[in-house]
């Protein structure tokens, strides 16, 4: 590998102005400003007490205009504090033609030796001059996205986010694969209210929300429809939808119900979890939307009887799937969840005993619109159960291969809710909840106590088996508080099954190339600090598609997702221009950049590599794999790094040690912190701020070492998406350094953390000692 690189060509005749800030003595007490001024070669060199003041603005601006400056160096504090300020002060100069030399945090605050600090200040300014000469005038990229959004999934999360978006003026398509919107919430009967210590009618709460979505002109509801492909370009999504026919024209159907009387086909009604039967022509539930019947074509015998009785002539038996293309600016995944298959726990006998049911089925039984009209009945004999045992964590908190290791969050409250409802209506029915731990945080704890006061019994223990003795079911459980093994005879057993990702969630992730968690829920960019964002820019997630949660939290997430969409829609997005650009003439379409980019910014469109400006972070990783060198970072980044290295090493003396330290945003802030806390480190440390350590390539390192740098220190925050790639790269670079006849020990790589500034200062000191011992 040829690693000898020439110095970048410096554009000639550029007029540079250097403005040095005393910072009210913070800098000038240590750095001899007069000495600095006389050592700097620039067209204008000025010294001021407080450059960041409005007075400073006038001085800078007047000089830029009157002295025709092409470039400006501000020798003052950290760019993290005041870069934006001085970018503004250099107007009418392009903001990117200004660079800051950090004389405060990285010099006067960390060194005591005035002579050495002054010499270092001169070098820092020189490096800035060299760097800014390479700078190009660039403008921020403005991305304007289509003011529309697609919401995948029409449950409470999807409906809520659609309403919020519509109210903000965003055209929203609410896409639901089932014949009606409403999701899981329509089935659960009552919902718990922790504050009121009461249960409320779920449908009564949901129905007005559904109506709001129906009546909002900005929302287009598309049922029987699912996304089958999607691609993203310049912040827009091209989605292809497939819409299945309803076989009943929803505009003509008046929901009179004559058709169901004549339909000869009966199948289990999924709305009632199969506890009742429905016809092949049916309406999912009475408040379903669209308010029209539909035909379940898989079970329909096409006898035509319904067609004959329909006075509205709404029924058609021949229909084909329709493909609908959709272009939207944003996408929200609200594909919800499903519940754990109880047959995966054969020990609980779900398929052996009729009276072993799930909480969802109990919800239907207790629902006044359910199969028993709200009457609590055993499925085997129609009697009211004398005792019910509820088993928690069925499929949750389970480390064996077919279980989920996570807690499903809502099941404790669901069990308590159903138990409370039963206790109120049927005080003679004994209820025992067998739990692992009761998890009712916050206000829900009050509801839990309320349940205990109502006489619900609780046993800590995970039942081993459900068996049958005579007419009774028997639950075998170890009470782990009493340390006793017990067998509970009961009429009914209710399983609290885990929440798990729906098939729709996995499908959309596959189509969109959106990352999933190890539990197959949609993965957020950062689980702690970046909720609802996904690793695809412009795509967001809410509700149980992201993980188990209750209705309230689903709605909170839905609103969060809609406001993230609004951020993009309202003003467009202004993006820092320093992103990757590709020369299609040189590109050989090897696609290595696509594979390596963790931000999913690269894709192939029309036989060319397309870089999505919204997604590209400008980290520069793609440059390292591009063999024909077709990729570049916009704004002369490469040249700027070389020029900075030149400047930092320019006036190095024989006996002097110089270490170039490349730090990313987090590392640079940590280094600033060293200064703020007045911790000292050797004068040999010269810090260069970079966007990502990926931008520092082998060629830069070799270049610096060959031109006299004693050591290279690279620091990066390990939370960065690319961190592991960098770690792998370092060993490779050390080998190359050796191949170039230099000591690989001269390269140091370290992780950095903002609060760990003392540690960073110690690392600087240690590296300096080590390098001194090498030479």
């Amino acid at each position, binding site marked *: 590998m040829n690693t000898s690189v020439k110095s970048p060509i410096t554009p000639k005749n550029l007029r540079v102005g250097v403005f040095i800030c005393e910072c009210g003595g913070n800098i000038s007490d240590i750095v001899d400003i007069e000495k600095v001024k006389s050592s700097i070669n620039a067209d204008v060199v000025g010294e001021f007490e407080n450059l960041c003041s409005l007075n400073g603005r006038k001085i800078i601006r007047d000089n830029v205009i009157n002295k025709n400056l092409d470039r400006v160096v501000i020798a003052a504090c950290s760019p993290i504090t005041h870069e934006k300020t001085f970018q503004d002060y250099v107007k009418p100069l392009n903001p990117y033609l200004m660079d800051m030399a950090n004389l405060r945090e990285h010099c006067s605050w960390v060194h005591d030796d005035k002579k050495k600090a002054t010499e270092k200040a001169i070098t820092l300014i020189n490096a800035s001059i060299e760097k800014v000469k390479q700078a190009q005038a660039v403008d921020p990229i403005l991305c304007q996205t289509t003011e529309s959004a697609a919401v995948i999934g029409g449950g409470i999360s999807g409906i809520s986010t659609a309403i919020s978006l519509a109210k903000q003026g965003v055209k929203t398509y609410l896409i639901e694969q089932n014949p009606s919107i409403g999701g899981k919430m329509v089935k659960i009967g009552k919902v718990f209210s922790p504050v009121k210590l009461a249960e409320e009618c779920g449908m009564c709460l949901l129905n007005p929300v559904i109506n709001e979505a129906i009546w909002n002109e900005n929302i287009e509801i598309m049922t029987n429809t699912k996304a089958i492909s999607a691609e993203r370009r310049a912040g827009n999504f091209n989605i292809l939808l497939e819409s299945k026919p309803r076989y009943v024209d929803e505009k003509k159907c008046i929901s009179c119900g004559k058709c169901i009387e004549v339909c000869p086909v009966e199948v289990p009604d999924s709305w009632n979890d199969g506890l009742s039967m429905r016809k092949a022509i049916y309406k999912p539930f009475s408040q379903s939307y669209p308010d029209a019947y539909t035909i379940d074509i898989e079970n329909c015998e096409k006898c035509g009887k319904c067609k004959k009785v329909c006075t509205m002539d709404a029924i058609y038996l021949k229909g084909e799937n329709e493909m609908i293309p959709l272009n939207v600016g944003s996408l929200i995944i609200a594909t919800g969840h499903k519940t754990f298959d109880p047959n995966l726990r054969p020990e609980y006998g779900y398929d052996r005993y009729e009276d072993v049911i799930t909480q969802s089925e109990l919800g239907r039984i207790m629902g006044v619109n359910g199969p028993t009209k709200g009457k609590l009945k055993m499925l085997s004999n129609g009697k009211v159960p004398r005792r019910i045992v509820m088993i928690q964590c069925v499929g949750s908190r389970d480390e*064996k*291969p077919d279980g989920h290791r996570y807690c499903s969050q809502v099941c404790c409250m669901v069990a308590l809710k159903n138990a409370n409802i039963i206790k109120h209506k049927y005080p003679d029915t004994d209820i025992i909840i067998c739990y692992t731990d009761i998890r009712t945080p916050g206000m829900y704890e009050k509801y839990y106590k309320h349940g205990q006061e109502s006489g619900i019994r609780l046993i800590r223990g995970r039942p081993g088996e459900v068996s049958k003795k005579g007419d009774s079911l028997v639950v075998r459980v170890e009470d782990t508080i009493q340390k006793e093994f017990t067998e509970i005879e009961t009429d009914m057993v209710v399983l609290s099954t885990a929440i798990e990702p729906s098939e729709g969630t996995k499908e959309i992730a596959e189509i969109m190339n959106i990352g999933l968690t190890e539990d197959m829920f949609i993965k957020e960019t950062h689980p702690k600090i970046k909720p609802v964002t996904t690793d695809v820019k412009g795509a967001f997630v809410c509700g149980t598609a992201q993980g188990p949660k209750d209705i309230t939290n689903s709605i909170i997430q839905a609103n969060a997702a809609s406001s993230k969409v609004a951020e993009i829609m309202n003003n467009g997005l202004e993006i820092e221009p320093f992103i990757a650009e590709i020369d299609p003439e040189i590109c050989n379409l090897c696609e290595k950049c696509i594979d390596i980019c963790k931000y999913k910014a690269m894709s192939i469109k029309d036989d060319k590599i397309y870089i999505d400006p919204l997604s590209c972070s400008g980290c520069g990783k793609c440059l390292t794999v591009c063999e024909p060198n077709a990729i570049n970072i916009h704004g002369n980044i490469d040249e700027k790094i070389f020029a900075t290295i030149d400047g930092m090493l320019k006036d190095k003396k024989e006996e002097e040690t110089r270490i170039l330290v490349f730090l990313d945003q987090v590392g640079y802030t940590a280094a600033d912190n060293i200064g703020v806390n007045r911790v000292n480190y050797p004068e040999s440390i010269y810090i260069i701020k970079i966007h990502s350590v990926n931008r520092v390539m082998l060629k830069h390192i070799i270049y610096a070492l060959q031109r006299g740098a004693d050591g290279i220190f690279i620091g990066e925050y390990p939370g960065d998406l690319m961190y592991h790639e960098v770690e792998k790269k370092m060993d490779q670079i050390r080998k190359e350094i050796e191949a170039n006849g230099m000591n690989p020990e001269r390269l140091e790589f370290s992780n950095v953390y903002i609060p760990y500034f003392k540690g960073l200062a110690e690392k600087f000191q240690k590296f300096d000692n080590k390098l001194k011992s090498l030479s």
Partner: protein
Amino acid sequence: MKNIPDKNVILFKSCLVSGEYPGIETSTKYIFDKVGIDYIVNDRQSCCTGLGHYSDVFDQFSTTIVGARNFNIANKTNHTNLAMMCATCYAINKKVAKLLNTNDEIRDKVNDVFEEVNFDEMKYEKGSIDSTENIFHVVELLFNKKDEIAKNIQFDLSKFRIATHHACHYCKVQYEDTIEGFRDPKILDELVKSCGVETIGWYDHKRSTCGAGFRQRFVNKDLSMEVTGEKLLSLKNEDTDILVHMCPNCQMQFDRYQPYISKELDTEFNIFHLNIVQLIALVMGADPYKIVGIQTHTVPLEPLIEEIEAISNKKDKELKKSIG
């Protein structure tokens, strides 16, 4: 599903099989030959230590050294697929393989011992026996040959109510590798099915232990017998004729102690106990004494054999009649 071999198999000898029910080994060999499984038995192979290990006689380190020695035999003979007749051997060897492959410190210590006693050539090489890829229970090899078994069936068992008892150390210890279910284990049910008959499937206590619990049988006899008794009562409720096993220790617990428990509970149990390989060999037409080894059983199997033969004879006559 994991890859199950039928070549380069070393049939791992078991103390309890050899000492209590040698018919299990002869039956296994009989079936292996019929269904085409290439195997060897090596006399240098030693006990897995299981019984002693679970009775606190051998610690894990000694067990690991013994395991490494046995793996060395498998490697040297180039028969690196170990097939266990006993569930204890199965779990013990899987654990040993995992330890040797993942714990460098233990592997080094084990190899130090080999070096000390001048058995350098026995040193274990990391990864040479994989817990999942190389260690199997015989029933898994047979499951892989279900169709071959079905082709060789000569006797009809459909008259009998057959239940299965799955060994804990097959499905409750190394459950990541268990095939055909570990919560409701079904591998024996599937094998019985390949003999042309459905088992009774799920029954109460299907998943519970045999009760032996290694030393529990001796130091905690009442509890041990109570557990076995409960399972026997449940099987009696289901009118079970035959209980099928996959571990000689479970088989001992039921077969040897059934008369005792019967007396204790004052209940008659008419349940025959057979290892799955004995059952398969029997219906394939193997000699009940020379191959199946029924003479070492406590619960006499002669009535069962007679009944099976009677059914067969009757069928033969009917067949002759219909032809004639």
